[in-house]
């Protein structure tokens, strides 16, 4: 058995140990599977067309026929909440992948090269951090134009400093590491060292960062669509559905805003728990 296989097996064993020790992480993982299931298969499983309105059944309370009730246009809320999973998750995942690529690479470059590259990248990160993040996201969407793509971009930009800082710190420690020196001495160029030596080592830490920021990305995107940016009705999306139901809260039709809000909360809760769990697996020292 090779050394790599042993390391891999002990990694899986450690993961199994952490999940076994911490039932909360196991629960979060179960939720995560359910959310991904809803996002992938949801649209083909739901009982009603999420866009089909039927005014004769408008504003019905939850019942056996309509589990989550119907909205002001008679659309089935259960179908809408489930179908919305895909869009909400896509926005969050896309923004996190974008910031992973941008922030991660920028941070590694800053940490590895130092000098003016480091100064410029860190100054950009500091300037972004000088804004209240949601406010900056609003400003970016306002400037770039009101679309889902720009929500993804704005969410990625406000998370940039977090990724850049983590990646920079990790790359900085590894710059002087033995294996990097060895790679340098055997004639590897800087680009090759960054991609083949530094990146694979910083990768797990950035993955933890990804799951920790997923929850925030979902909240941020839903907040933006709640105030009317990005997603347009009648497209089902949790933030905009809560906004649509807000007016009915004061007249007692609670279910219109409640179920999409609950779905949003469960998704964010799941990713936060999962992020903490993953961090425990990869970086036991930072456990709180």
């Amino acid at each position, binding site marked *: 058995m090779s050394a790599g296989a042993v390391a891999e097996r002990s990694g899986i064993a450690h993961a199994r140990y952490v999940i076994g020790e911490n039932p909360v992480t196991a629960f979060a993982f179960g939720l995560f599977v359910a959310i991904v299931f809803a996002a992938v298969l949801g649209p083909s499983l739901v009982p009603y067309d999420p866009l089909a309105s039927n005014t004769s059944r408008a504003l019905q309370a939850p019942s056996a026929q309509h589990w989550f009730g119907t909205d002001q246009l008679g659309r089935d809320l259960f179908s809408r909440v489930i179908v919305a999973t895909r869009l909400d998750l896509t926005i969050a995942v896309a923004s996190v992948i974008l910031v992973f690529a941008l922030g991660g690479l920028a941070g590694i470059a800053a940490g590895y090269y130092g000098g003016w590259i480091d100064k410029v990248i860190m100054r950009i990160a500091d300037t972004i951090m000088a804004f209240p993040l949601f406010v900056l996201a*609003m400003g970016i969407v306002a400037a770039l134009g009101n679309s889902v793509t720009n929500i993804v971009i704005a969410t990625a930009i406000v998370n940039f400093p977090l990724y850049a800082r983590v990646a920079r710190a990790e790359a900085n420690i590894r710059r002087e590491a033995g294996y990097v020196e060895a790679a340098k001495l055997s004639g590897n160029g800087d680009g090759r060292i960054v991609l083949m030596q530094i990146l694979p080592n910083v990768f797990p830490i950035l993955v933890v960062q990804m799951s920790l920021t997923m929850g925030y990305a979902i909240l941020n995107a839903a*907040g933006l669509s709640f105030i009317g940016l990005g997603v347009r009705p009648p497209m089902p999306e949790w933030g905009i559905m809560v906004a649509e139901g807000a007016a009915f809260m004061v007249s007692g039709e609670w279910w219109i805003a409640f179920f999409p809000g609950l779905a*949003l909360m469960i998704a964010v809760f799941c990713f936060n728990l999962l992020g903490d769990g993953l961090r425990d697996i990869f970086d036991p020292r930072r456990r709180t």
Partner: protein
Amino acid sequence: MLLLIFNRVLLAIPTLVGVVVVTFVLTRALPGDPAAYFAGPAATQQSIQEIRVKLGTDRPLIEQFGRYISDLARGELGNSLTTGQPVGKEIKARLPASAELTLIGLLFAVMIAVPMGILAATRPNSFIDHATRIVSTAGVSLPVFFTGLLLVYVFYYILGVAPSPVGRLDVFLSPPRHVTGFYLIDAALGRDREVFVSALKQLVLPALTLGIFALAPIARMTRASMLAVLSSDFVRTARASGLSPYKVVVTYAFRNAMLPVITTLGMVLSFLLGANVLVEKVFAWPGIGSFAVEALIASDFAPVQGFVLTMAVLYVLLNLSIDVLYGLIDPRIRINS
């Protein structure tokens, strides 16, 4: 100490410059022509050009930036294109509403979260410890607009104890005479009991919403930092010397544990200022957040730009005062400088 404050203020200047540049870039240097937008779909090339000249967007970028800076220096943030009103005036008039809401929300959060964190740290694995852990994980997962709506449903619709969630005051009352712009303070100064009670009633739910949101990170940090301090040597020495548990926790541990908590306040404020926008939308609160949201929907750039700039400047100043406060509380920083 004065030198420390002076140095910290100097450090804030490049940040402020960065903020101004970013807000400028956000509206001027990006693709899309606001002139074409405001001229409407039926506009001719000539009328678009006229609006461009009026807005100054036909000038070179560097000249536009110079004009933007000189306007800012005079406190001008441009005019709203939908209402024609100067943005600076509107933001100044609405700022106290947002500030009152945010401050009361933060106060509420600190008053609940700090004792909660301390109790959780002094009684590990007790009921309060588990409750704190649940609250601090669930609290960060709650979308703030959702919490607000749930509170409205429970306290306004079901229980009927809260007033209608619209604005800062009952519609039949007129606002107190303007002194600070904070209705609670102004009403108290004017000895107007009715207005004070009405303003307080309107404020409770939105402030509670913000407070619940800010509670989680503060409680989490207080707990972690208290735990670290309680296991340190000087606390052991204090205990061994026979000091009362109260004195050990409150005088010795608490004061040291508060330092990291004050540092997290900066991050909490970042979230709080953002959440403020959402809460203002839910409760139709006439602050700068709802002003910006209305402008965003109408694609009216000047108010949004003014809002983003105001919020960022406020945030930089708040962080500055947190750092100064930190220096005042922690003697080590004063000595080391």
